[in-house]
């Protein structure tokens, strides 16, 4: 499998691979844990291939969904597979004639995947977010794939206004009806409740793994952590839940050990995952990634959907809860501050510094970054901004910047040995 090849290959000549070298348990457990993670990573590596196989197996519908606030549970309640479309590794070719080069790598990859026939297995494409670049991509896809049902249920991004909650409910209603139409089924409240419960259970297990990483109890690499979340975004919930249950049981047996590696928090990177090679490189500089607020990370798993009461109302509530819980600069909410959340996270997780990963041309992140920077300066938090691109990064050049950050942290005596 391609993933396994990548796992064993030094990333760009660096020593750090997918499996953490400081693993502290027995060989048997390493194998079992690695086996589970590798199987999830294989799905994360080829989500469209997984969806095709799932479709062949179940004869069910596959609904492509777009980040970051789509309630996948509604698709599951329709008996379909919600597939959160990922950035593709392929070079953008035909997509260049659909979207300008000054759009983020994710949106350019989306249109390229559409234009190169990779969305053939999708029965629909749905979204609720209205990032301006995403809208451009989706309109291009509408032209490119005129037979594919594409549906926008635009959630208002201003969270404080009295008009917002009724509009979110109204949009959910439209989404519900459209999914029933595309999936040729009736979505029942019972099915939705079951889908919510399954998602919550999986999120809870992923949060548990994040907690163990934060506490230093486990030493999964950034690449491995990403594979766990990415696979959650694309897999059948029951299947993913089964793998997570086995994994968590194995990880619970791990013991924390002292480490003098620099502890970093990774922040940002909306909509799609940073390239694993970048995470490998950061870790190769003597770093342990202890926490994050990445979309393909904590942001995705942080918030459960209420399980009591009307499930439709719960889905609406979840939209607001998510931004209360892990604020996002794609929303405008007077009472929510990403920088305050980040400062509190760093106090809690004991990170020695922060690396902010911003996808090039991500406008909401570019707009908000100065607010984060102000907080870093006010709190004396060492930090580094790395801009990522679809086409890849000059890793060796970026590495010198990471090393400089780490050297600065070490010289300042900020590092804390953890156990």
């Amino acid at each position, binding site marked *: 499998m391609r993933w396994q090849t990548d796992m064993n290959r030094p990333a760009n000549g660096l020593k750090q691979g997918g499996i953490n070298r400081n693993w502290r348990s027995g060989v048997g457990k390493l194998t079992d844990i690695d086996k589970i993670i590798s199987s999830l990573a294989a799905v994360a590596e080829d989500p469209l291939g997984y969806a095709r196989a799932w479709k062949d197996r179940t004869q069910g519908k596959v609904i492509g969904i777009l980040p970051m606030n789509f309630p996948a549970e509604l698709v599951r309640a329709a008996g379909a597979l919600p597939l959160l479309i990922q950035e593709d590794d392929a070079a953008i070719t035909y997509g260049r004639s659909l979207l*300008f080069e000054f759009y983020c790598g994710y949106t350019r990859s989306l249109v390229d995947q559409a234009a190169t026939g990779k969305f053939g297995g999708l029965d629909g494409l749905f979204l609720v977010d209205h990032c301006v*670049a995403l809208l451009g991509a989706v309109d291009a896809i509408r*032209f490119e794939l005129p037979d594919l049902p594409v*549906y*926008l249920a635009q959630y208002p991004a201003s969270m404080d*206004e009295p008009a917002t909650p009724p509009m979110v409910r109204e949009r959910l209603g439209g989404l519900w009806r459209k999914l029933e139409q595309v999936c040729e089924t009736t979505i029942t409240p019972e099915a939705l409740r079951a889908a919510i419960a399954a998602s919550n259970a999986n999120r809870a297990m992923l949060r548990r793994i994040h907690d163990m990483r934060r506490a230093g109890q486990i030493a999964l690499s950034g690449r491995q952590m990403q594979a766990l979340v990415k696979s959650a975004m694309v897999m059948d919930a029951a299947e993913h839940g089964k793998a997570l249950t086995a994994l968590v049981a194995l990880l619970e047996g791990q013991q924390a050990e002292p480490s003098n590696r620099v502890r970093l928090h990774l922040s940002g990177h909306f909509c799609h995952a940073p390239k694993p090679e970048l995470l490998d490189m950061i870790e190769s500089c003597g770093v342990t990634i202890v926490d994050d607020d990445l979309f393909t990370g904590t942001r995705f798993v942080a918030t459960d959907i209420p399980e009591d009461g009307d499930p439709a109302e719960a889905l609406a509530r979840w939209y607001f809860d998510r931004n209360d819980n892990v604020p996002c600069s794609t929303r*405008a909410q*007077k009472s929510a501050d990403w920088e305050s959340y980040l400062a509190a996270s760093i106090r809690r997780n004991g990170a020695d510094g922060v690396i902010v990963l911003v996808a090039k*041309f991500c406008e909401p992140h*570019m707009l908000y970054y100065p607010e984060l920077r102000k907080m870093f300066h006010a709190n004396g938090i060492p930090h580094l901004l790395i801009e990522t691109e679809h086409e890849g990064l000059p890793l060796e050049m970026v590495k010198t910047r990471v090393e400089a950050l780490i050297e600065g942290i070490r010289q300042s005596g900020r590092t804390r040995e953890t156990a």
Partner: protein
Amino acid sequence: METLVQTDQARPVFGNGLKANKLKATKFGGKLVSEYWESVFRAKEEGKKVVWYNGTYIPPFFHSHDLVWVHGEAWSAMLAARHKEIGAQGRSDQRGYDRELCSYARTHIGQMLIELDKVKSGHHAMAADDPRVETMLKLPAPDMIVNAYPYCSSGQQWDDITYRTFGKKIPMFTIQIPLLWGGRPDAGYMQGEEWEERSRYVAEQLFALTKFLEENTGRKYDYDRLGETMSFVKKAAELRLEAMDMCTVHPSPASFFDWIVSIAPVNFLPGDQNLVTYFEGVKAEIAERVKTGEGAVPKERHRLFFDGMMNWNKVGWLADKFAQVDACVVAGRYTHMSFWQEPQLIDLKDPILGMAQNYLICPNNHGAPIMIGEIEKVCDKFDIDGVVCHASRTCRGMTNAQFQIAGSAKKYGRQAMFFEGDVADESFYKDELLNVRLEAMVEAMDAKKRAA
């Protein structure tokens, strides 16, 4: 291919070297714009409350409540048009804003930071020769912030940053103007269930806006005054559209660039008799040109449509550029499909619903299939030979769907081309690329006409 000749002037001669034959009547607009900004600068001295807003053309709500308003985009465009944007953009760079971010936002936020710097430092003095002095010393701080941004998600976030920069102390109101996605079977331009629902949704928020203004001024909102303000706006809009319609003749008596400099009156200037007077003047001059056969381009051979946001640093430059290859840019998405484009929807006795509907039909607020259909109608109406897409680097709201727009133009037998630039950041403009592409486009249109 034409040869570039460097002259003793700063601007290289291109093509035939002729200049655009601009409308004279638009000079009155320049006077109105200057007076408007002067009134903004005097606001605090006159004890008036100031609203900062971004997005659609909502000033009639402020004007009817005796408020002074600052349109962030207009401020940035004004600085760019006067080539005074560099200081503000430099300050935003210093703060950490990436240059790939919307240059309207960067310029406006940069200005805001300059103003706050002055407050914090306790002195307002700048060096006498500082180019920022003339316009930048006076931007009054907001007493309220209103956001009413159709389509572009960054517009809402921009005002959120403004709110935060002022310490979350300024009352803020956001009007959500949802995209007319056009996914339902009955969807079309100003028709269908979606249109009806969204119209009511926005109208309700506009009514709530009047309550917000009441709460923050302690004064009752005067809806009769709103109707009166809108009577001037509606009349001006009608005159503008009538004058635009007169440009279907060959040669076109006015160009896209004349309409560009006529945007301020229908976008953010006070809704009073001056607006009507302005467009009466424009219409009269156009009527006179129609009578005499005088064109906006001295030797019009080709008629173009301009897609995209204006490059405010280059208004005159571009007007001349197209004239120099005998191409008249007759119409554009920004000018001909927005700004009180459907004035008949406005009932002066109860204008709010019609205002909401005009805000909704901002052209990029439609899903691309409907928007492009409307563009083709405009192109047919004005007998357009080619479409020029301004790929404005930091304005994704206006570059979305441009490849599909170009594709549609070609499908209907029109030439299409792109050129690189930006709304307020001149550094993204690539003159020589535009030159060669424009020359190639003109050659293709010539060849096509010869073949016909």
